[in-house]
């Protein structure tokens, strides 16, 4: 793919939407999504054949999700900046409502221990916590960038208000419980508060509170057994070879046996023998590890790195604090979620059940990722205008 470098575009006076796009960002995200489609196809093909179902079913749905995600991204990127801020409370309200509804029995559904899904017709499902990520980033960015000039620190009351905005959905997600998403959002919250220029005591306070909460949760058994199991499986992967430990062990065997160049797409013995559970969603990275090897696995990390680099770059170049905070939030979310996911595949982080951005199968995640790209482009284009 030939990519026009955006800096050259800046010189032009009046340019089209396509010309002003950050093609490096879009190209990387698109490449990851396509690699994801192939990995999901490889992970599900033989399972579907064994079950007598359409082998391309997951591939088709993944591509459909991608197309919907692209449309959402384009819409978000072209939104008027002021309108975006105006719609934020509505989005936030919808997200909170979704998070409440999902907890209602028989409305929401439990997958892998978390009461986090709405099941939709056609085999699709929807996770309101993905919307909540965007709502929190936009809501906090709005509050922390309003009513002050860019050089001054946000007032304590603003920080408190912003944290309150984040706290409600986080609490609801905790109830599902979806600890992985909570961790991702917590990191994004911390980063937004930090980049907003808030006094250092807030950062110290937030980190301390996080440590304290983690301690209390572990010490007093507030976590459900399912979550404790997932955490202990991380510390001792051989402890429970037929439960969660089995997932991580098999994923690691798949990745390790991939070697440098991999066993070839659709030819991974662990993958095709169905030894790694959940390998179209949480453990999709094991498919890349086994079939594409070190080379393919590193390529995915590089593509993610490019997206994150562009996100930080956009944050630095943003014309106003709102744009900078939104880009910061997106960058942190993507970075930490990717690290959590790849880390659990590699056995260096707990099994938390978060998807790998753009690669894992799953509609709501895909939509949220592309909405996030849309937001970054929106901020990016506004920077050029200013």
């Amino acid at each position, binding site marked *: 793919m030939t990519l026009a470098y955006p800096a050259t575009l800046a010189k032009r006076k009046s340019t089209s939407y396509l010309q002003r796009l950050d093609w490096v960002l879009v190209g990387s995200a698109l490449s990851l999504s396509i690699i994801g489609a192939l990995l999901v196809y490889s992970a599900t093909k033989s399972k579907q054949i064994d079950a007598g179902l359409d082998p391309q079913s997951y591939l088709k749905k993944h591509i459909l999700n991608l197309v919907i995600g692209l449309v959402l991204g384009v819409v978000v990127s072209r939104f008027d900046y002021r309108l975006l801020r105006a719609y934020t409370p509505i989005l936030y309200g919808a997200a909170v409502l979704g998070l409440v509804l999902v907890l209602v029995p028989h409305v929401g559904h439990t997958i892998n221990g978390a009461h986090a899904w709405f099941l939709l017709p056609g085999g699709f499902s929807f996770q309101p916590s993905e919307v909540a990520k965007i709502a929190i980033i936009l809501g906090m960015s709005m509050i922390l960038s309003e009513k002050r000039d860019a*050089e001054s620190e946000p007032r304590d009351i603003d920080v408190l208000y912003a944290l309150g905005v984040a706290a409600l959905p986080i609490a609801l997600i905790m109830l599902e419980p979806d600890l992985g998403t909570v961790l991702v959002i917590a990191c994004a919250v911390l980063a937004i508060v930090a980049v907003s220029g808030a006094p250092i005591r807030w950062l110290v306070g937030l980190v301390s509170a996080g440590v304290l909460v983690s301690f209390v949760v572990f010490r007093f058994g507030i976590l459900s057994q399912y979550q404790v199991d997932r955490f202990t499986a991380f510390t001792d992967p051989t402890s429970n070879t037929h439960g969660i430990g089995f997932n991580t062990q098999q994923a690691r*065997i798949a990745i390790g046996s991939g070697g440098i160049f991999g066993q070839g797409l659709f030819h991974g013995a662990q993958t095709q023998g*169905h030894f790694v559970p959940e390998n179209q969603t949480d453990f999709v990275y094991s498919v890349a590890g086994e079939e594409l090897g070190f080379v393919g*696995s590193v390529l995915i990390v590089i593509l993610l790195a490019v997206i994150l680099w562009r996100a*930080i770059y956009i*944050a630095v170049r943003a014309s106003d604090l709102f744009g*900078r905070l939104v880009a910061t939030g997106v960058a942190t979310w993507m970075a930490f979620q990717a690290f959590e996911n790849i880390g659990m595949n*590699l056995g260096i982080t707990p099994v938390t059940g978060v998807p790998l951005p753009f690669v894992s199968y799953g509609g709501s995640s895909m939509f949220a990722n592309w909405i996030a790209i849309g937001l970054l482009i929106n901020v990016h284009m506004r920077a050029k205008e200013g």
Partner: protein
Amino acid sequence: MSEKSTLRLMVLGILIASLLITVVSRLFFLQVVSSDVYTAQAASNRVHTVETQAARGLILDQVGRPLVSNRTSLIVSVDRQALRAQEDHGKAVIDRLAPALGMTPTMLSYRLEPCGKDAHAKPPICWNGSPYQPIPVAKDISQDLALKIMERRSDYAGVVASLEAVRVYPSPFNVNAAHLLGYVGPVSDSELADQKALIDAGKLDPNGPRLRRTDLVGRGGLESQYDKQLRGVEGIKRVSVNLRGSVTGTVSQTTPVAGQDLVTNIDAKLQEVAETQLKAAIDRARATKDPNGTGNYRADSGAVVVMDVTNGHVLAMASYPSYDPSQFVGGISTKEYEALTTASANLPLISRATQGQFAPASTFKIVTASAALQNGYNPSDQFDCPSSYQVGNRVFKNFESHEYGQLSLTKGLAVSCDTMWYQVAYKWWLEAGGNNPGAHPKDPVEEMSKAYGIGRRTGIDLPAESRGRVGGREFKTLQNKQLHDSWCARSRDGYPEVAKTDPHRATLLQAYAADACANGGLFRGGDAVNMAIGQGDTVVTPLQMAVAYSALANGGTIWQPQIAKGFMRSDGHVVKTIAPKKVGSLPVSQANLEFLRSAFSEVTSQSFGTGYPPFQGFPLNQIPIAAKTGTGQAGSNKQSTSWFATFAPANKPKYAVVMMVSQGGTGSKTSAPSVRKIYEAIYGIRGSSIDPARSVLFGGEPTQTFPKVTVNGEPIYPEYRDSRTTSGGGATAPSGQSPSGSPSSGLVVVPLAAGWLANKRHGRRSRTSTRSRGGTT
């Protein structure tokens, strides 16, 4: 925007970069550095191993009679996985099966639990094997039950009736031979641990043949000694499976190699005579009043060894008391095993022939006489044989205080004079310095004892042989090294625990301890004279005496006694012939050996000989028997040990026979008559006539060749009848491996073939093969 904000954004960027670097480092470690480890794990993930146990080799006597064989047993096993998959977790099946097997459903369900802390019962009730393997719950079930189980699949889902090879003891001519054969038992945890250590050290292929928890291995006797050859090599089929355990293909396959047949030098007929005669000697002793005690001889144990003096082949060997090795087939109960190992049961598992140690008494004079002839005495010398002899302040008497006056060496041996040897030994002891020996005192008796192999394992091919002991200076020094400190402590502190009940005895013990503390390492004159007549600290195994008498008989060669003749495959191909092994030679001149052979023959041939009465009427003119009686003192509260050590013919020796009966009285009255019977059996003697055709040995002498086998691999022996002429079906036991997909099957679990069922249904008798050879189809 503030500098602070931009700076913090930069920090965020660096944090994110470090996360990504962490990921790539870990990837490098997994995929580049340790890829091999994971590749191996992935391979074992997808490949499961199914073992087919090889049929264990037979143990045959010297002409091919099976002493240990295999038979097939109908067993019932239950597949727990299949039960659990059922709606009621197999409850209905268990309720139906348990009464048919004569157990309660609760007991049956206990049997299906894997051993561990959750199990209701301990081994052997709980299941010790792999959880994926069908669990055997009953053996030797009736054919009717097997049929019912295999035909009514819906009632008995998850239950399989199959054939399993078990050890069987055909006992030709009712031989027992338990101490020779040994038995098989389950693999022990320590053996599995040793094997794991080997695998971890990279010295054993984890995918190759190895011991499984459910395997049986030799435990004692030849089964243990030659376990490796008898066991054969298991067949290993490696199948690829997917996560659900469905088999997707065969990766590699090796067929099992049946264990080799062990052909022994034992002759079943002779063994039977030896066993019967040992028992006869014991019965004879028990019917005899002990003149030194109150009741009859207890005759608690005994042993007999028959050897070929020309090569060390053991032709027969028996020990009393014995046990029934078939008790161990299919697992022995704790109660049964305790009955075999308690002291009150008199330890029937211990072979008195190779593990029992007894004072050799006068049979030891073979050593003393050899030493005398090699150290200055001549065959023509006259010796003084008074009724007693005083050494220091102790008086040593002749047996029953006989007095013989002057006599020759020959007659001294024949009448078993002790006092003449006291004088000889005492003279040597004084020459060596008496109570003040030099640095290297010369001791002809100790030297000659070692030359005859006493105090050293004979090297027979049986496990856990005892060494015996030469009770000379070396032993005294060693004993002093070990006990000196405790002697001295006792001499200081006395025996307060004994003093409570018996103050007199405590005083004596303390005095002894004080003496031992001061002079413990000293080899005294009393020790020297005691040793010369086979008393004191010297102990031997009956087998050692047989080896020693064989050496005198064959011209001075110490052969390693050998039970195994060699190994052959089931097709009759001889894999290995074990050659006689010379382990030493006597430092005695041929002339002296010749003289001694003739001297010992006078024990039976001369009317004054101790062995004369039991051999009256025996054709000694044709088959002269060289012999020595022994009546050993075995401690203050034990009756005397009866010994009779012999070889024949004295002028051209071929066989050595040694019998020993513990607490059995004299050698001539208890053991000698039985030894005579053994010689009569060997030579085919009836009355005083000799007929080699009546010999128990096929062809009148030991068979050196290997037996022939039938096309079925059954050995042909003199009494062999072709079983095909008497059998109906002619079908051999079906062989094969466990159902595909069930990993790690240690047993030969053979699903009953449809043809087998058809045979049974039509009332035809399927021949129960004496051997079941896995994988030879």
